[in-house]
């Protein structure tokens, strides 16, 4: 009827409520939850879904009672061990395992086990299981932002190093409308610092976008440069008292790396998989709880009222059929545009 979704994500909510409902002891709910995960895993991979992501443990969950947290960590350790056994489902479906999150927050044994599991399954190519532990989208995004800043800083340093060594002070021509680039890339606080008359010599920088500004009839090049002070020195040498027109300036422009959407995406923990096509949260709650905020912005959220250990094949089929229906509608709309 329609395509099978490539990637389904699950928020496995409701284990404790299930245990209470069944009169089980605490902790038993999570064990039942693991069994449900194995079941769903099989259904998904049989259906032809390649990527499966599950929200196993949020950074916020560390705030729970220490006994519960310990119980979950022990369970994880136990189950990781089981998954790596010869006869497990991992080998049956050729699953490559990823543990997504701030793994440094995990206790040593769990972290080591997770890393071992990732290494052991690195060569599997048929299907992928991404287990989010010690994860929140906030943490993922902040980490991606930090890494992007670090990358750009390194890029700029490398660029400067190669230019200075060549004794050349010309930049690479980009051929784009610089003013257009500025309007799009220069943001609030940086713009105001630029408008100061000492723009050339201050350590202004906004990811290295060139600013062409008219001040008192003179067109200055206030270059937004690197994180290095030397960068500014070089810039002011080339820019002092410049009265070139915009057309000329295009030839002698520095193109500094700017942070873009792709840079952040590249540094996301979830960058190893495509975005989910469907997000399912069990137990009837209708919120994301800091899970895959970036990656699920265009995918539908289904909220079956069943608790996670109660999830079954029909819930999955229902979600897939709905996905196919709306996929058909969106494809039609896309073709119209």
């Amino acid at each position, binding site marked *: 009827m329609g395509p099978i979704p490539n990637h389904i994500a699950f928020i496995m909510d409701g284990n*404790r409520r299930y245990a209470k409902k069944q009169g089980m002891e605490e902790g038993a709910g999570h064990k039942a939850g693991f069994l449900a995960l194995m079941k769903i895993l099989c259904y998904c991979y*049989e259906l032809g879904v390649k990527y499966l992501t599950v929200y196993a443990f*949020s*950074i*916020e*969950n560390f*705030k*729970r*009672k220490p006994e*519960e947290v310990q119980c979950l960590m022990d369970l994880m350790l136990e189950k990781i061990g089981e998954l790596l056994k010869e006869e497990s489902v991992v080998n049956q479906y050729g699953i490559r395992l990823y543990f997504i999150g701030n793994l440094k927050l995990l206790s040593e044994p769990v972290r080591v086990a997770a890393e071992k599991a990732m290494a052991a399954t690195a060569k599997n190519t048929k299907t992928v299981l991404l287990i989010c532990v010690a994860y*929140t*989208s*906030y943490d993922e*995004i*902040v980490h991606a*932002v*930090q890494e*992007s*800043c*670090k990358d750009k*800083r390194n890029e700029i340093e490398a660029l400067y190093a190669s230019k200075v060594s060549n004794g050349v002070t010309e930049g690479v021509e980009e051929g784009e409308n610089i003013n257009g680039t500025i*309007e*799009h*890339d220069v*943001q609030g*606080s*940086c713009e105001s*610092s630029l408008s100061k008359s000492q723009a050339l010599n201050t*350590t202004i*920088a*906004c*990811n290295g976008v060139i600013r062409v500004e008219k001040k008192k009839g003179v067109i200055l090049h206030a270059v937004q440069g690197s*994180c290095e002070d030397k960068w500014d020195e070089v810039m002011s040498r080339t820019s002092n008292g410049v009265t070139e027109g915009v057309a000329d300036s295009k030839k002698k422009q520095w193109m500094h790396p*700017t*942070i*873009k*959407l792709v840079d*952040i995406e590249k540094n996301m923990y979830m960058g190893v998989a495509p975005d989910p096509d469907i997000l399912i949260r069990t137990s*009837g709650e*209708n*919120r*994301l*709880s*800091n899970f895959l*905020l970036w990656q*699920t*912005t*265009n995918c*539908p*959220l*289904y*909220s079956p*009222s*069943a608790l996670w250990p109660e999830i*079954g*094949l*029909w819930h999955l089929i*229902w979600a897939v*059929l*709905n996905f196919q229906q709306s996929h058909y509608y969106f494809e039609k709309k896309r073709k119209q545009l």
Partner: protein
Amino acid sequence: MICLLTLPPVPLELKSPLSFRTRAQQQQHSHPFSQTLRSHTVPHKTLTGGGTATTTVANVALSEHNDLNAAEEDEPLPAELNEELMPNHVAVIMDGNGRWAKQRGLPTSAGHQAGSRSLRELVEICCKWGIRVLTVFAFSYDNWIRPKVEVDFLMNLFEREIKSQMQKFVSEGIRISVIGDSSKLPQSLQKLISEAEEKTKDNSRFQLIVAASYSGKYDIVQACKSLACKVKDGVIQLEDISESLVEQELETNCTEYPYPDLLIRTSGELRVSNFLLWQLAYTEFFFVKELWPDFGKAEFVEALISFQQRQRRYGARLS
């Protein structure tokens, strides 16, 4: 291999999986599949009181006028709602104008016109019921690819609406803020927005945030760029970049309540579509089948009732 003969029986709640269930049907079962997706038996707002057949653009204008007068009267909080559990910040994805117009054989512009009336009414109710902030997704960054005729109409509509509501904003203590990449908006609209924001910046009773040419992802990218600037300037260290620093750089830093408590999306779509991204981490979602021009007080009350019944745990446990 899954053997079809041995499939478990279909759970009661999934018996009609692809049809939207009426509220009556859902109440028969103790656990509706999707509590928030429903087809209402509540009477829809009809424009001329006679159903859909006689709807015309002229009638839209007439009933807009009538509704404005009606909205002036006092609106006490309905008995079903608990004043103490009202959300501070409500966000709305105003989806379905085009489909609404198509259903009536009208041009898309009529749908947007009717939609702006829904918005005015919602602003009115929010003000009266003590909600502090309303953020609406008026135009996505991804919507620029729509036909130019429609985009131009929308830009004109924004301008007309801001101009016509300006007096009301001032007299009712409403602060208006616009978030999004305003550089892509027509110059005249940019200027009008600046003026409106300036004129209402000290109003504190209620804040209307209009997301125009907005994208949740780009909000984060621009926050990232601001932080990169600060790192470069030595204002902060790379290691200082934290969740609260990111939050402060997002465009929603124009309000005391940057995180919506409740998100409502109309027209039956179950996704966020690049609206507020970071800000929606713990927001309660309420998806409504009605198209935006048909969303009124009754639907809003239902969303609020649902919201007030939810247990918000933020990852911890309520013992």
